[in-house]
């Protein structure tokens, strides 16, 4: 056990703070979470729309509210590599990107979970080039879904702040030690304000322990060699360990949400997905991110006309709560999956989420028909009529009328 991190002086005394309510954007909420989490190293590089978080971070640093090494990198690849290495020597780190910026960092994104480096990143979801579009699409964050990143989608500034604190706790748990990316829909969340309860520093300190790498700390007191060449001799065993870490992540996430509720008094229910008006629903829609807002409005309108529609908003995409989700979705007569992404050439030409939902449901006892929708790409609004159109299709599926595997909704024909 290296002494370096253990035999430290008392941490800097933080001024007592009180809870307050503030009108802030999703990006600002995450910047505030960085301050509350006392992050040590933050790297920035500009790309819309995520970069607003770094603009807020810069202000927090220049005003002396956040004490960290704030580094403006020369590319996203360096941005993510810098924090990866800072985390290896025991620093709590924050980073983020959007769209092709996230893709530019792909190599760094690959090695970070492979090295078991905890990191919290914000993805301001954005359409991938080409052609250029600033608006939201989920393909950026989803691109790393196989690599060991924990991926979570949020739909309000409050949830963004809370989830960032939870993400640090989960990522830095020794049982997990995997990075976590918080997806915030570009513009709809990164740039939209809402009232946010900002917790007191004392409560955050009670919730979030210090990051301790223990015997994995890279330090002269603990002269380890990290990531030597292993070849076929050991690679499979190491991959299996990483897989086990991801499997343990589900438990750690549950614990973190339970403690969060105890300490902050805010209740999120099932951490993995949120259900809206599902108790008596015939059919259900499922999707991620801020499309929850038009969906909820449409559901209220449709219920007035007697259509019993529910909505499941998936928060955690990795780890994917397959059994639990399959059991939930099995309660309904048909399921419609709304993808704000695409997966060209995939089974039934679906989006990524639809493919995952179908895979999750295959072993389930009850398997209602699943209809896939691709909608709201490039930041196009998902409208209330769009939601109604999707609902009509799943009602037809529920009645046994076969529907196309995937439908593009809101498309100019």
């Amino acid at each position, binding site marked *: 056990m290296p*002494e*370096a*991190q253990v*035999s*430290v*002086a*008392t*941490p*800097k005394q933080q001024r007592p703070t009180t809870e307050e309510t503030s009108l802030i954007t999703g990006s600002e909420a995450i910047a505030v979470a960085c301050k509350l989490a*006392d992050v*040590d*190293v933050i*790297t920035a590089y500009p790309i819309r729309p995520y970069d607003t978080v770094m603009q807020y971070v810069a202000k927090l640093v220049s005003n002396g509210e956040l*004490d*960290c*090494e704030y*580094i403006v*990198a*020369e*590319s996203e*690849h*360096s941005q993510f*590599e*810098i*924090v*990866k*290495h*800072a*985390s*290896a*020597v*025991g*620093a709590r*780190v924050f980073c983020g990107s959007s769209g092709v910026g996230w893709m530019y960092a792909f*190599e*760094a994104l690959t*090695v970070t979970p492979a090295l078991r480096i905890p990191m919290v990143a914000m993805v301001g979801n954005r359409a991938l080039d080409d052609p250029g579009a600033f608006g939201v699409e989920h393909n950026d964050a989803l691109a790393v879904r196989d690599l060991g990143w924990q991926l979570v989608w949020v739909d309000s500034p409050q949830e963004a702040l809370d989830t960032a604190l939870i993400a640090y706790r989960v990522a830095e748990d020794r049982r997990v030690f995997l990075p976590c990316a918080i997806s915030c829909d570009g513009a709809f969340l990164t740039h939209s304000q809402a009232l946010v309860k900002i917790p007191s520093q004392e409560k955050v300190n009670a919730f979030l322990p*210090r990051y301790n790498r223990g015997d994995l700390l*890279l*330090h*002269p007191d*603990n*002269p*380890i*060699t*990290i*990531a*030597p*060449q*292993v*070849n076929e*001799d*050991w690679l499979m065993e190491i991959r299996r360990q990483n897989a086990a870490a991801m499997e343990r992540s589900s438990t750690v996430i549950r614990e973190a949400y339970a403690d969060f509720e105890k300490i902050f008094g805010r209740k999120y229910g099932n951490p993995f997905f949120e259900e809206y008006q599902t108790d008596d629903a015939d059919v259900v829609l499922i999707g991620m991110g801020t499309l929850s807002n038009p969906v909820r409005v449409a559901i209220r309108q449709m219920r007035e006309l007697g259509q019993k529609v529910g909505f499941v908003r998936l928060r955690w995409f990795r780890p994917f709560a397959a059994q639990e989700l399959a059991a939930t979705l099995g309660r309904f007569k048909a399921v419609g999956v709304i993808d704000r992404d695409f997966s060209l050439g995939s089974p039934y030409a679906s989006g990524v989420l639809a493919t995952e939902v179908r895979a999750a449901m295959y072993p389930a006892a009850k398997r209602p028909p699943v209809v896939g929708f691709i909608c709201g790409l490039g930041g196009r609004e998902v409208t209330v009529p769009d939601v109604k159109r999707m609902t009509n299709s799943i009602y037809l599926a529920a009645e046994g009328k076969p529907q196309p595997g995937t439908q593009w909704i809101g498309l100019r024909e």
Partner: protein
Amino acid sequence: MATVANDRELAELLKRQPTQQLDAFKGVKKVPLEEFFTSGHRTCQGCESALVMKMMVKAAGPRTIVLGSTGCMYVANTTYYSTSWVVPWMHTQLGSSGSAGLGTAAGLKALMRKGKMKNEPINVIAFCGDGGGADMGLSAISATLTHPDYNLLILMYDNESYANTDIQLSGSTPYGANTTFSTPGKVKRIMHHRWKKNTAGMLAAGHPGCRYVATVCMSYAVDAMNSVRKALSIGGPTFIHSLDPCPKGWDYDPIQSHELGELAVASGVWPLYEVENGVLKLIGKTRAIADGQLKRTPVRDYLLRQGRFAHFTDDDFDYFQSKIDEMWERWLIPGVIPFRKQIDGDRPPA
């Protein structure tokens, strides 16, 4: 004096951490016997880059963290369960030596400054090969050299090709060399027409905030080690470029590695210098050549020892020699700044 005062103010402003003060080794007999890069590596016989690793970390001492980007010195040096590193060592990606050094230094600085880690100067060295440094990682190295607030050394071991992946040409491969990506054929004798990048010179000239840039060669090991010690002591980000003869890539008998390094310097192909706080100093034989005390040996003697130039004709040797002559006779600063001096007979620019 004003410069010194400004530097102090800058250091205060940046809250730069103190460095270890590593004095120069005064001769080979004063070099400590203790090794921090030991057995367990699998480099080729006669590998000068392995010698660079050994001497680099010997010069730095035990309170050092080393980051190694992908390349020979990763793949051949750090086999699982038989690591040769006594000091803490971590792999980084091919183009990440700059970012790895910066991130490590920033992490340590933040933790020490905030009282989360025992405060002590720890050396941070990130190394890369010529592929990782002169090609892929150039942008990250350049960015890192502009951050005056972190103490770290980036060392580029230049064996003039991607030697680990089968000897492919890099931006640091000399003109005309036979590599697996530039094999001489029936129609094209010379497949590689690019002139070797002037990496150290460009980094020294382009980063006025960087306080130390040097070229070294392990044929002059004590000088090289003292360069490492100076680079680590001076503070801020620093860069060292080492030319490493490579038996496999250059195609020669491993016994000649040391001699080839000497020939590279004696022929003027590899000038040894350091730029310390903006002041250029030529070192050893390079200085003697510049002062006119030593005549450059013919480049042909250096090239003929290497199988990678076996396809060269007299014309090729002459061309290579003419480019080296140009570097020495017409560059503004030979080996460092490639702008040409205006000499007699040149017409002034319009």
